[in-house]
């Protein structure tokens, strides 16, 4: 691997146990700039924990994380704060700040963490909200937004920090079927702009059309790894293909997004 090809993000041999149970077992993931990888697999397989370990919301027991080639000191709080500023995270249940309106949800991190002035922060926040189609919702509080709108604010909030990588933990799983589309559209446009993403999702349309690579996780290990064109070929017998077939059957039963 030459120097131009240094991955933006390297998570190397990450292990994590909770109360004696091994949730992640020496899992490694690399992301090159602009690459999109999708984590799939049964629930309890460790997808969420892997994502949370990568930006150290959960500290890994073992393993290392490097950002643009520089290893992060996992024992130093400051370097964890630094890491998290550069690795955006989108949660299944949004985690917008309930006491702040859409605009301030974005400006607060810019002002407190990035120390940007209020005016500049507001300007940036408006821009990001417009990007996700919520330019007219700046003054609304989370309680006044629909699930899809909340998730789009959350994405705008993460993007305002100019992250190098975006981690998405089942971004559409908590949404009503009719609201999934608007979030998917935003994620697609991010992909179009070349955002580097690692995403856990059960959304078949995202898996098959956006992923450069599929990572199938089961029992804390990546058991299959490859491009959708290899893994999702009908009749190839891969676990991923079987899993996605079941997802599409479910999706066909509900709605097409």
């Amino acid at each position, binding site marked *: 691997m030459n120097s131009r090809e240094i991955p933006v993000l390297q998570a190397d041999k990450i292990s994590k146990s909770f109360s004696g149970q091994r949730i992640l077992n020496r899992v490694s993931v690399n992301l090159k700039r602009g690459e999109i990888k999708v984590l799939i697999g049964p629930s309890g397989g460790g997808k969420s924990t892997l994502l949370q370990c990568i*930006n150290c*919301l959960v500290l890994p027991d073992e393993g290392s994380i490097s950002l643009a080639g520089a290893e992060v000191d996992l024992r130093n*709080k400051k370097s964890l*704060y*630094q890491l*998290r*500023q550069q690795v*955006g*995270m989108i*949660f299944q*249940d*949004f*985690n*917008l*700040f*309930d*006491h702040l309106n859409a605009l301030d949800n974005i400006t*607060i*991190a810019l002002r*407190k*963490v990035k120390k940007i002035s209020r005016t500049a922060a507001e300007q940036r926040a408006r821009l990001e909200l417009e990007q996700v189609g919520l330019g007219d919702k700046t003054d*609304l*509080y*989370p*309680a*006044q937004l629909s699930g899809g709108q909340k998730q789009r604010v*959350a994405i705008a*909030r*993460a993007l305002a*920090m100019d992250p190098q990588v975006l981690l998405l933990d089942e971004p559409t799983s908590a949404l009503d079927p009719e609201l999934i589309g608007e979030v998917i559209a935003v994620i697609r446009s991010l992909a179009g702009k070349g955002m580097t993403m690692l995403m856990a999702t059960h959304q078949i349309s995202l898996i098959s059309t956006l992923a450069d690579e599929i990572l199938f996780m089961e029992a804390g290990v990546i058991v299959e790894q490859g491009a959708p064109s290899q893994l999702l070929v009908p009749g190839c017998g891969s676990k991923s293909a079987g899993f996605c077939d079941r997802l599409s059957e479910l999706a066909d039963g509900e709605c097409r997004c």
Partner: protein
Amino acid sequence: MLTLSPFYHDLLDALNRGLLMSVALIVPSACGGVLIGTLAGTVRAFGRPWIRSIVDAYAALFRGTPLVVQLFVLYYGLPNLGLYLSPYSAAVIGFMLCSGAYQSEYVRGALLSTKKGQYLGAQALGFSTWQTLQSIIVPQAIRRAIHGCGNEIIYLIKYSSLAYIVTCMELTGEGKTIATEYFRFTEVFAVIALYYLVLVSLAMLALKKIEKFLYIPGFGRN
């Protein structure tokens, strides 16, 4: 000009004097109580185990014993240790400590009921623990605690009447003197009750204003 009978003249004179003393007791006690309660509640929610157990013990002691007993200890007990408090300071200290213990419970509850996702959301953006507490958790907790804390302040207004048992002459104490002098208990205590009702109503009005000022959709009333 309305002329009052000597009884009512004396009564209103005494009660107005008492009212001033009551307000002088209530305001610092309420502020001190909220301050102590906020600090103690935060420690009880997030503090290190050893300091948490100390503050837990404080809250257990002051919530677990009658206020009258606490006042007696402060005023009549401490001199045995060479510590002399004026009636006024004994009362204010007693009220602050007692109120703070109750307030800490409201604050603790409000802090602990903040959803875990709020921490995660902030941490994921690179907030330090302190920034998370300051910008996210506390502003939300204030809005959850305000109803309970307001309730405690209203309660404090009424238990401030206990100051007279350590000879701090406030509303109730002044009134009681007049009542004994003229032997007209019913009228005197009816008027005292009215004074407290007005005090509490004013406090409720102020609290409503604060609630309204802090109102955010999704917190409290919808």
